C-alpha cells in the first residue's frame, strides 16, 4: 500500500508568516510522530499522537508550534510567525500500533525555508 506522504514537499516562507504542513499516515496506523531535522543533524522529536490524542508534545520548541490530528488520521503541523531558525526538514512518521517498539515508517519530509 501507499506509504506516508507529506505536503508540500518544499515551502518557502517570509519571516513572520504562518505555515501549515500536512502528513498523511499509512491508512489504519494508530501512532503518528513529527520530527524536525536541521541541516547536518539527526531528526529531533516534536510530538506524538495516538489516534486523535496528542500524548507527548514535549519536543515542541515554542508555543508557535502547534500540531493536530482531529480525526485520528491526517495530521497538520502549524508554525506561527515563522523565524529563520525554523528552517529545517519536517518529518512525519506513523506506526501501526501504539507500542514504543513498533516500527516507524517515515515520509519524505517537507523542507521549510524561512527567509
Amino acid at each position: 500500500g501507499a506509504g506516508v506522504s507529506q505536503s508540500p514537499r518544499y515551502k518557502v516562507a517570509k519571516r513572520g508568516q504562518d505555515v501549515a504542513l500536512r502528513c498523511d499516515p499509512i491508512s489504519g496506523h494508530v501512532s503518528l510522530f513529527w520530527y524536525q531535522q536541521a541541516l547536518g543533524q539527526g531528526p529531533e522529536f516534536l510530538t506524538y499522537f495516538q489516534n486523535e490524542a496528542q500524548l507527548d508534545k514535549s519536543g515542541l520548541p515554542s508555543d508557535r508550534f502547534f500540531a493536530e490530528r482531529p480525526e485520528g488520521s491526517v495530521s497538520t503541523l502549524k508554525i506561527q510567525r515563522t523565524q529563520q531558525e525554523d528552517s529545517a526538514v519536517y518529518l512525519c512518521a506513523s506506526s501501526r500500533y501504539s507500542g514504543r517498539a513498533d516500527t516507524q515508517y517515515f515520509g519524505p519530509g517537507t523542507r521549510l525555508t524561512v527567509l
Partner: protein
Amino acid sequence: AQSVTQLDSQVPVFEEAPVELRCNYSSSVSVYLFWYVQYPNQGLQLLLKYLSGSTLVESINGFEAEFNKSQTSFHLRKPSVHISDTAEYFCAVMPLDTGGFKTIFGAGTRLFVKA
C-alpha cells in the same frame, strides 16, 4: 537527559571491505536502540532494533549491531559492503521512562562505498 553520539560523521570504505559505524548513548533509564538508514533521495527507514534478549541483532541485508550495556554502545557492522550500502545511517534510542514516546537520534554517519 539522554543523548546519542555517532563518533564518525563520514566513513569512506572500498567495496567488499568491512565497516563499523560507531554509536554511543547516554541514558539514566533503560532504552530501546535503533539504527535507521536513509538512502539517497529516499526517506528514513528502520534497519534494525534492539529491544531485549540477545544482544546481537541482524538486518536482512547483512548488517548487525551489538548492544553493549557496560559501554553504552550499539555499533553497526557489516563484514563486506556493497556500493548500494552508500547512505546515511542514524543511531537512535527510545528511553523507557514515564511513558513518553520520544526517540532521540544521533547526528548521522555518512557511509560512502567506493568501487
